């Protein structure tokens, strides 16, 4: 793979779309592009063909700092047994809607 003749791939970008209802941007997938402007074009062509979005964010995948699966337990297990962090210890009156 050190051979200069091996065709290198364009870097990966992650694509986030916002739908028309003013929701948050949602991660929809990833694509390859040579630069951010090209990534935006590609995102438009790959992910908004069916009228899905009104706003696109692209982020170089390399720029995302992600939690590691190895750290899953230290990161997330401690919150699993602390039921008091969930506001469930009270009765909701019947006449309070939208809860």
């Amino acid at each position, binding site marked *: 793979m050190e051979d200069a003749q091996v065709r290198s791939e364009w870097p990966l970008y992650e694509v986030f779309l916002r*739908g028309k209802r003013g929701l948050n941007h949602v991660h*929809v997938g990833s694509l390859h*592009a040579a630069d951010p402007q090209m990534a935006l*074009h590609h995102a438009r062509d790959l992910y908004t063909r*069916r*009228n899905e979005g009104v706003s696109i964010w692209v982020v170089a995948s390399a720029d995302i700092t992600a939690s590691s699966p190895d750290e899953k337990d230290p990161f997330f297990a401690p919150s699993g047994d602390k039921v008091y962090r969930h506001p469930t210890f009270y009765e909701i009156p019947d006449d309070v809607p939208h809860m």
Partner: protein
Amino acid sequence: MTDDEFTAYHDLADETGDHRWAFGTGFTDPLEGIDTSVPDGVNAAALAAYCLMLGDDALIYSHRLQQWMTRLPELEEETAIANIALDLLGQARMLLARAGRAEGAVLAESTGRSEDQLAFFRLEKDFRNVRLAEHADADFAQLAGRLLIFSTWRLALLGRLHDSRDPVLAAIAAKGAKELAYHRDYAAQWVIRLGDGTELSRTRMQAALDTLWPLVDELFRADTVAGDLPGVAADPAGLRAEFDDVLGTVLAAATLDHPGAAPMAEVAGKCGRDGVHTEALGYVLAELQSVARAHPDAAW
């Protein structure tokens, strides 16, 4: 994709409730529900001929772009070019349908030819597209260069038709202009990227523009059809300034030289708009029309 991502994506897609997978499918009449009567004082025969010209440009160029499918260097570019070809096919459908209706208004007793009859059952000499549309791209640089030339010219043209006296043509132009603005942006980015890239990419981009340039002058050639449609059609010569301005900006950003090749010769004073084409169109039509001619009146 995980299930979660898949669901999130479809939640976005479902917002419009429009499940048609692409423009041009799911309906048979592109002008359904539209009043297609020809406005008073508009020469219906000339309107039909004019819509045929603009429709043929889009139809033939769309087919040339479709021929790039499975041959592009990256999957993402393939989708981009497919989208652009589909946009142009949509424009062709509406314009050919408009040409058929206007033709029907001339014949009075008939509705004129359908879009399919016009696309699939005309001979080479009856096609009115500019010769640029039928050119076969030799490489990706020609694809980018030709798309830049075509979309810059057509965007200028459709921009002039916004307030055409024919409301149908004006509506088709308004829709098409949004599409072409994207096509032009896409092509300009590639021309700049290749021109201002490596020595090899610059050489090939320059060679592509030099090859295409002889086909440019024809785009701005006066034609009698537009002359017969005051207030409806756009004067081709009037588009040159905007075209030169945009091309100049892109070429400068791409560090490319302005091509100076002489225009391609006309044949006895005639060219694409008169039905006089290069050899390339015959091959395009052979492929484009073969299925429809083998199975006339088939539905798909």
